[in-house]
């Protein structure tokens, strides 16, 4: 089991970005993502948490700042090349292809290395061993899976590319608590396996349950950060601090 390394695998520095000219959603946000850790970004609605992930993944261009992975800059890299750079992104709404079967969804996860049949077979088998429910439902249309199963399919598909960094946006949104706990367990397991996870979440208790390090955002900037222990004592105080501190 790999230990967490203190050298960030991905760094984002002073990111400024927005959807409309003149209105910035991110105003100099910085994060570090480390192997073997779940780093969690919390904060009130509309503060730019999801935007941060979109900018890192290349869906929204940064106006300024820098993003590096392994010392190599990612700025300007189109989103479809991110999987080859070792980054995957799981948006708030599961990014499965709802009208395709589970089997085809998984096959599409091997797109960048589809010609390497042995690698495709090996990784698919590994994913199906990790998520056995998917093996039972290979021919089922992905959109007909339950919310939790869709998330499992999405994570399984993401892992086919053997990413170093996983960017996750509210992975348990609209999922019942029992299944949400399973999903958090899976995410914690990914970190134990040496993956670097940057988790954006509104489920504060759930996220704090697995986070190694917490970033709190307000109005597009870093409000405070620290290890999980700094935040777990009194969640209510934490939330009221976000809401009422100016």
């Amino acid at each position, binding site marked *: 089991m790999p230990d967490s390394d203190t050298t960030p695998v991905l760094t984002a520095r002073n990111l400024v970005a927005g959807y409309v000219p003149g209105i910035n959603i991110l105003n100099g946000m910085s994060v570090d993502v480390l192997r073997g850790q779940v780093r969690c970004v919390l904060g009130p609605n509309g503060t730019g948490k999801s935007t941060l992930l979109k900018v890192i993944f290349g*869906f929204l261009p940064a106006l300024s700042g820098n993003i590096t992975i392994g010392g190599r800059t990612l700025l300007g890299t189109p*989103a479809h090349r991110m999987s080859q750079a070792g980054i995957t992104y799981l948006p708030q709404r599961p*990014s*499965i*292809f*709802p009208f395709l079967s589970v089997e085809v969804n998984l096959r*599409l996860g091997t797109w960048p290395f589809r010609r390497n049949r042995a690698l495709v077979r090996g990784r698919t088998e590994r994913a199906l061993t990790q998520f056995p429910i998917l093996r039972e439902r290979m021919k089922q249309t992905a959109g007909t899976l339950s919310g939790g199963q869709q998330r499992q399919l999405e994570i399984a598909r*993401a892992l086919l590319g053997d990413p170093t960094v996983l960017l996750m946006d509210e992975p348990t949104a609209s999922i019942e608590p029992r299944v949400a706990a399973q999903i958090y367990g899976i995410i914690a397991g990914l970190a134990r396996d040496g993956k670097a996870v940057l988790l954006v979440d509104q489920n504060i208790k759930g996220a704090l349950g697995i986070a190694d390090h917490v970033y709190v955002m307000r109005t597009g900037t870093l409000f405070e950060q620290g290890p999980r222990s700094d935040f777990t004592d009194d969640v209510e105080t934490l939330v009221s601090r976000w809401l009422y501190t100016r």
Partner: protein
Amino acid sequence: MTDYILIQALNGLVIGIIYAVIAAGLTVIFSILRIVNFAHGEVYMMGGYFAYFAISLLGIPPMAGVVFAMAASFALSVLIERTLLTPLYSPTTERKGDYGILVTFGISIFLRNIALIVFGPYPLRPPSFLTGALILGPLIMTWDRVFDAGAAIAMLVFLLWFMHRTAWGEALNAVSQSRESAAIVGINDQLFYMLAFGLGGALAGGAGALVGPIYSLSPSMGLIPDTQAFAIVILGGMGSVMGSILAGLMIGVSESMFVALFPDPSRSLTYAQAFSLLVLMVVLLVRPTGFFGRIHTALD
């Protein structure tokens, strides 16, 4: 009378298959780029001219002329997509649907007028693919129509095979369902926009080359098939290639039967297109999403 109706039904099937090819191309473009391509009929027209000049200037055999027309239409469509449609993919472009309509409408007018200047207003007729007629008892059909039907079926079978049996077809389908999800798994969505627009154009151009020996070529020949193709796409269900094929056959046959059975033969041809739109209206009243329609508009 029965023989006459049977012959009309067969003719309707042939034109229906051609309509299906045009509409399937429109469906592919609509599903991936999410734009209504008003220039589709003009690419169909250009396909006819590409085949004509390949045959008459380059000495290519008429059947190979269809392949040439498809390749040239693919190239023309890719050129249009790369030069004029890329702003559709920018996150900063607002009202993308309106942009697509205005640009393709402009391209349609441009191509029609360029054709008028370059090729002239007079109809041109490429040579037959096969001369003579197939005679089966009372049924008579020119070999050109038989070839057209066979070639159009081959195009549709190829399209279905490509979409359902190849990795690229699966990726195209994935892009049609979600551009963002496709990019997440590493699919270059821009490449597939180009492919979809080119593929749709190749189908339209191929159809234009097929009808040349039957209906002749003119700069405005794309107007009516284009309108029919829009009706067929809606009738079949937006985004459904199989729906487009079935709706194309239905419109082709029903139009032909209408012409055959309309009491006043001197006016029946004039009303043929109105009849197909009437079919569309009736179907939409009963089934507003078309035959295979669903709430999303992805490729199927």
